[in-house]
């Protein structure tokens, strides 16, 4: 996944922070939608 020269430039914590910044709200939204979708099977 990572390029050979990437690790020296961008710290892992920055990558994790950037992905968490968009990933957490998206995951919460997906979970909420999934819970609502389960009504189809009730």
């Amino acid at each position, binding site marked *: 996944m*990572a390029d050979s020269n990437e690790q020296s430039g961008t710290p892992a914590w920055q990558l994790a922070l950037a992905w968490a910044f968009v990933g957490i709200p*998206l995951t919460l939204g997906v979970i909420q939608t*999934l819970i609502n979708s389960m009504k189809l099977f009730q």
Partner: protein
Amino acid sequence: MSLFSFFDRERTIAKPGFSRWMVPPAALCVHLCIGQAYAFSVFNLPMTKLLGITKSAPNDWTLAELGWIFSLGIFFLGVSSAVFGRWVEEGGPRRAMFTAALCWAGGFFISAFGVSIHNLWIIYLGYGVIGGCGLGIGYISPVSTLIKWFPDRPGMATGMAIMGFGGGAFIASPLSVWLMSIFRTSTHVGVAPTFICMGAIYFFFMIVGSIIVRVPAPGWKPAGYTPPAQATKLITTNDVFVYDALKTPQFWLIWWVLCLNVTAGIGVLGQASAMSQEMFPGKVTVVAAAGFVGLMSLFNMGGRFCWASVSDYIGRKNTYFVFMVLGFVLYCTVPYMGATGSVVGFVLCFLVIISMYGGGFSTVPAYLKDMFGTRYVGAIHGLLLTAWSMAGIFGPVLVNYIRQYNVAHGVPKAQAYNVTMYIMAGLLVIGFICNLLVKAVDRRYHMQPDRDSALGTAGLASGKPARA
């Protein structure tokens, strides 16, 4: 150094060692925000009670009047992406993302003012026109940047961003409902402060995206990646100028492929709830239908990432062949599922169909890159999005009017959608033929170095691997 130079393309060129995996989150910062457009309907009902509070007053707006807000937004998405595409491409992603943030957040603030003084025209201007321009500029802003960072997997890269547009509604919908519940009082329904809050949140998110986005340095390529020495049959190593692309049959063939694929999907997406209840009376309740719509949204989002990623392995043209052939089979199967009362079969058919609807959006930037090169792919993509605007009108019209015609002529409601399904299948046959006709772009449309200078683009940091 002025503040404005911060937004220059040159200031966004990545230093050695910058991880390209920082760019998809930057793109998602924008797409997750503008994806709110899909969830705008949560405001419709509260906005019909702005004066009456508990129920609509005579001077309150109607749903039909409010429906124009979303329609205007989508219309200006297509217009602005087509008009500003070249500016976005040449000015770089940071300037475009910042502009999109100003327009998008500004649209919310202006709309909040429109709600507070109860003037619908201000909301049309705010969310519809200005916010719509934010939608268009924001939608195309990260596309070419992602393709340049991921020349080895352009489908996956753009699929990630465009997946965000599909996923934005998942965040916006509960957030809007929650904010309105906080701001609601006995004297107002809380829409205006919710707009202000959402505008501020989206502005912050999009600005973060514009700060972390980078373009690759000229000649950069991923470690271990060797650009193809020669163009393959359907993947060019040359570039086509944005307005020259309009002169090629390939652009218009892909325009029709996208338009027909989206028309087939968007019609059923809007009518899924009513369709499932009418085709299976007594079996699918209102609550179950709402769950079905939610599940379709998830497949719409997932399809954007999965199909675009698959296209990196099987090729763009083959991916669209799958959409057209599989879509044809599934649309023809739906009436049979209705006749046999198979709810599971019906749901499965539509989940796959809607995943391909999303996949059509996310695979097309890489298809354009294959045909027209990377330099102006964002701008060409912007022009192509007019196909979306067109499909947005025709898809729902086809489904609604054919159903209405059938019901008026005595066809039982459970069978009223059968003709529509066959028409959708027919549209996909036309799409199949258009896709079949796509060949490599004639070399007379390729950009030449002397022509680049004449167009004033010689200094543009394209960041594409050196040509063989």
